[in-house]
């Protein structure tokens, strides 16, 4: 077994275990921390697939910024133990959720194992920021700019919402 395979199994196991932690741990801070571990493990998987940039950006934005804000909010709420009750779902809801998850899992598994994805030799500079930048600003410039506009709109909306509340006070 070569080193990359060992690394892959380690990171994949870490991702799965911590992802289970996200949904099964009781305290929201613990859940959010498990999510951080999941994201870092996924970033590691990206790096083993030679997508260095994607892996680093995953850590930088998701683990380093978005989840810090998640945890920041959860910490602000400062939940005590007695406020954390079990979420009481009925048996029917549980069965439905289980069926949906199983269906999703099976269809994903089917899709991944089918040879639908064309496999070709990777270009020399695959995953490097030069090729990524070129792709973003030539072939995919319209989706890229649209995503930028979407984010700007969301940002302005957030500022407006926050501002209106201040004025009401």
């Amino acid at each position, binding site marked *: 077994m070569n080193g990359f395979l060992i690394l892959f199994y380690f990171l994949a196991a870490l991702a799965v275990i911590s992802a289970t932690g996200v949904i099964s741990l009781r305290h929201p801070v613990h859940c959010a921390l498990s999510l*951080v571990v999941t994201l870092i493990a996924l970033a590691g998987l990206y790096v083993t697939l030679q997508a260095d940039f994607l892996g680093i950006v995953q850590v930088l934005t998701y*683990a*380093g910024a978005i989840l810090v804000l998640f*945890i920041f909010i959860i910490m602000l709420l400062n939940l005590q133990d007695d406020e954390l009750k079990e979420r009481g779902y009925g048996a029917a809801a549980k069965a439905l959720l289980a069926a949906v998850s199983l269906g999703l899992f099976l269809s994903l598994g089917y899709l991944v194992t089918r040879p639908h994805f064309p496999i070709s030799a990777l270009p020399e500079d695959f995953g*490097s920021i030069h090729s990524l930048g070129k792709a973003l600003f030539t072939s995919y410039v319209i989706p890229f700019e649209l995503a930028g506009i979407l984010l700007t709109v969301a940002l302005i909306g957030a500022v407006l919402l926050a501002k209106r509340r201040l004025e009401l006070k």
Partner: protein
Amino acid sequence: MLIIVLKIIIPFLVIMQLLPLLIWLERKGAAYIQDRRGPNRAAILGVRLGGVVHSLADVVKLIFKEDIFPTNANKFIYTIAPFIAMAVACVTFAVIPWASPLEWKGSAFSLQAVDLNVGILYIFAIGSMGVYGIMLAGWGSNNKYSLLGGLRASAQMISYELTLSLSVVGVLIFAGSLELNTIVQNQGSNLLSWNVIRQPLGCLLFVVSAFAETNRLPFDLPEAEAELVAGYHVEYSSLKFALFFMAEYANMIVASALIATLFFGGWQVPFVSTETLRTYAQPIAYYSVLGLGLFSVAAGWFLVRRKHKVVYHDARDYETKVLGFPALLVGLALIAGQILYGPLPLGETGSQVAAAAFQFGAFLAKILFFCWVFIWVRWTLPRFRYDQLMKLGWRVMLPLALLNVVVTAGIYLWF
């Protein structure tokens, strides 16, 4: 394999050796800025080295202190937080180049642990993990002051991370690469082509946000002792506290190394290019060893000749002699060796290694200088208020950083 392990371990050891030195520098610097003497009591057989030995006494104290767990603290998170803080600080060093790559048997041998294609982004990604150490310490201690410290830390570090990353964009435009080694090589050895001259605003913004990211004064709100006792590490004791303490200084070293690499030419020796260093490696090595010998003799002579004062009535009275005589002898031996054997032939590899050693020395000098700036600022400026901190970050620094990006890109495009 061995080389990879060495490449990983040596930078770590360098940081570990710098830490006690920096703590000593902080204490002495603080003392002299405040008109005091600073640490000067701890001694081993009378040798105090001007207070350096005090760091050893500190280590012993921290190891033997009781390790306290606050009641209702979350044990796992409380324990893991200082480790995250320290690990993050050390891991960053993997991509920092220490000297010009050696050319050996036709292939370049880079003097950094990994030469990542996305170098600077790696540093930002790891740096953004650093906030977890402080946040989790603040939350896990189950103490309101700690929690406030943790909250402040996360808000502050996220706010200043934006400016930190944006202020580097100008540098990246000039270098055309994210690799730190390319950025250093692009700056060249001429002082006037360093990024501090080409990107003065970017440099200023980067330095200020680096202060905020390392939680050093004037931005040390997460541990503001006047309001929050000690903020996120108020409950920590013993080696866990020591880890936070070390992480702060390790972060300072990393920040200084980054400032030096990105804006002050990294390992470049001012006005002396790598080729010049390699061509004249032999005479440069000869004369610097000779100079070192002369300096050692002068320092030893100065110490030995000092008037024998009986102040303490114990071994400390003889400290100047104990330090002075070996310095004198070592200096004489170095001079004698150099004069007797003359300049030694270095060969191809030898001159490259000698040049790398000089560049490493230059880099270390720059790092220490910026560490000193960190200490200097800490004992000179008062702390910001929290709203001032946020206003500065979002209303002044961020627009300036964006302006810097636009102007730099425009200049690069049109000229």
